[in-house]
């Protein structure tokens, strides 16, 4: 297999894993102000993601780094064309990171309220904007020989916003299920109830997204050319239904796993549809950025493949180990015994 294709798949995997992991952080971050009844519950919610969110976010850094190393032209043009949108993502992520660490360092209600707002915005904005960005990538960006002809407002087109909404709802359901699993008693029950309610909204938006995708993008062309590939979107839909199937039976771990699969498969549905483009041009296909015209040299791709084959499994291994250490539900006891964090 050509190295560009290996890296295209890895590129998809990095984004998919990033959305799957930071997705529940975003979900929990968006929900924590609304679902909690008091400060203790807020602390519990923050503590469910406290140990892991940092490690989850590195998947984004790695996705960015991998794009730089494997497809430098795409990296350069994507980041400079989407300057203002990415700046907003960046500011939001900075705010979230600082808020997560600093919220518990003071006891005054004003201090906590301010950081709560930062956590909400720092979770909601990236969720929305990643969706908007990917929606626009699916649709293609207005680029030709003269460069880029879009703007921040251009990105906020109906399809981009719909994809943004899809991401927000995916992460909300994902986060609510995470909280169902990681907390107990009434907080867990409320989270479960909310996950089910939000799921209906997610279903509606997902259907709208699939239909709109047919009109707004060329993503389906690859599937019509090779029916075997259809298994990915079909499984995505089945996983989406699985979320509710298991949740309604009270099997929340299975429901959460379905939600993980949904996020991964939805990402791959888009990524497969893009192939061999990384960013299609909607003005002139000759100026689409493909994995072949924007990649690094084969030598660099080989080096990076060796690095990835050695270290990515190691990372996955210790991250799974880490999740196992923190597998128990977070309770009130946890937050009183450790005042350092949250």
């Amino acid at each position, binding site marked *: 297999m050509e190295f560009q294709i290996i890296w295209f798949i890895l590129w998809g995997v990095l984004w998919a894993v990033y959305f799957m992991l930071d997705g529940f952080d975003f979900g929990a971050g968006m929900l924590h102000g609304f679902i909690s009844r008091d400060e203790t519950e807020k602390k519990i919610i923050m*503590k469910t993601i*406290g*140990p*892991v*969110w*940092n*490690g989850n976010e*590195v998947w984004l*850094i*790695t996705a*960015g*780094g*991998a794009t*730089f*190393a494997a497809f*430098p032209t795409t*990296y*350069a*043009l*994507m*980041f*400079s064309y989407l*300057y*203002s949108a*990415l*700046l907003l993502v*960046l*500011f939001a*992520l*900075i*705010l979230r*990171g*600082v808020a*997560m*660490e*600093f919220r518990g*360092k*003071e006891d005054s209600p004003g201090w906590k309220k301010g950081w709560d707002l930062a956590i909400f915005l720092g979770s909601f904005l990236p969720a929305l904007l990643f969706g908007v960005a990917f929606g626009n990538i699916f649709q293609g960006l207005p680029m030709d020989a003269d*460069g*880029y002809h879009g703007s921040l407002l251009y990105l906020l087109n109906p399809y981009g916003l719909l994809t943004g909404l899809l991401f927000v709802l995916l992460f909300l359901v994902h986060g609510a299920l995470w909280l169902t699993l990681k907390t107990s008693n009434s907080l867990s029950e409320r989270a479960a109830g909310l996950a089910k309610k939000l799921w209906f909204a997610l279903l509606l938006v997902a259907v709208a997204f699939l239909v709109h995708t047919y009109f707004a993008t060329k993503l389906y062309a690859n599937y019509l050319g090779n029916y075997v590939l259809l298994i990915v979107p079909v499984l995505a839909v089945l996983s989406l239904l699985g979320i509710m199937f298991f949740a309604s039976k009270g099997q929340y771990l299975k429901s959460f796993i379905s939600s993980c699969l949904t996020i991964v498969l939805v990402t791959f549905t888009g990524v497969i549809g893009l192939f061999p483009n990384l960013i299609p041009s909607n003005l002139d296909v000759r100026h689409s950025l493909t994995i072949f015209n924007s990649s*690094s*040299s084969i*030598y*660099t791709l080989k*080096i*990076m493949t060796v*690095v*990835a084959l050695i*270290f990515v499994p190691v*990372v996955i291994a*210790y*991250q799974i180990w*880490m999740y196992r*250490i*923190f597998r128990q539900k977070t309770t009130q006891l946890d937050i009183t*015994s*450790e*005042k*350092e*964090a949250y």
Partner: protein
Amino acid sequence: MDALALSRLQFAVTSMFHFIFVPLTLGLSILVAYMESRYVRTGDEIYLRMTKFWGKLFLINFALGIVTGITMEFQFGMNWAEYSKYVGDIFGAPLAIEATVAFFLESTFIGLWVFGWNKISKKLHALSIWLVAIATNLSALWILLANGWMQHPVGYVLRNNRAEMVDFVALITNAYGWLKFFHTVLSGYVIAAFFVMGISAYHIIKSSNLDFFKKSFRTAAVFGLLSSVLIFIVGDFHAAEVAKTQPTKFAAMEAVWESQKGADYHLIVVPDTANERNVVEAIGIPGMMSFLAFGYSQAEVRGLKEFPADGRPPVMATFLSFRTMLAFGLLFLILTFIAVIISIRDRLESNPAFLRIMLYALPLPYIAAQLGWIVAEVGRQPWIVYGVLKTSAAVSKSISNTQVWASLIGFTLLYGFLAVIDIYLLTRNAQKGPDNDLSAIVKTAGTQEV
């Protein structure tokens, strides 16, 4: 200002801000890991309290280092797209490796360390902070190998309108990158040492938690002296490497205008950049500059006039930053030497004047590190990749002045806000002193083996 000037200013602001937090992380992670290891080995609770107290300050600082680091990765693409396109084939690799090999390790184990007090064994807990310390230093290695390549590009050919990597081993064995790595992490160790000594001095002056802070001070003093000695040795090699590979930077650092054999080193120099000469050159040591640069006193040092005016860096900024950094380096050597002697003889309380000096010296290594980066980056101009790509050709073509103005203002406001919060939290927690009630941790630590 145009998009180029604004992007340069923005990169300077964001990278210098980032580098307020990174060096303390580099050094303090090692000190905290050492303290926790001592606790595990001796069982002495004072080390646990030290771990907790310095660990808390470490975490406040760590958070800002992480979040301001994301900015750096984004900016290469956002503002420097032409650069990224041109050198991404070789520059992207160390960045991606840094994320895969170091960031994951650092970010995963910091979570385990912060939240794992009651969940894992004492040994594993100490191991996790060691892994954080190793990972931060490892990440410095990869980013400095990348920067080392910008300073002294190796292992590439110009092909397909870009620089393509042909020798990965050359990239990772680039002497420039390694010297820069050691020089940079050692600057972080000096910063951490002065940070711990400064705050300890504050408490010793006020006679609060004497044992605790005297012990902290002594640990930091030894670490600081070792680092100050090593940074001088490494710095010397580093300057020689610069002389060999970046003649324009070296000439600007030393304000050498005319090429000369057997160049003297003048302790006092006042450059006159308009007339391309030095107004004052006093107290010369014969042949010393040639010796420092090339190892023998008759070697030829190339002067700035040998290069076209548009191929030279800003001389004044490079020269002054270098000289001041050097003077600071000497000062740190003297201060840490005295600190070690006084603290080992247990005479700290009876030397309040020295303690006051150490308190006020806390920011100095920070300034020295920033000056060092000015030498490195301003001194490399007009090149972004020395001899290969000019900075003026590296800026993104698609960004407008308005966009960069907006982002620069945004960064200034956001970072200003973060700086205020950070200083507030650090000062408050540093003044508060250690928490003496460790019952919650001690009771359960080590009971749940994993």
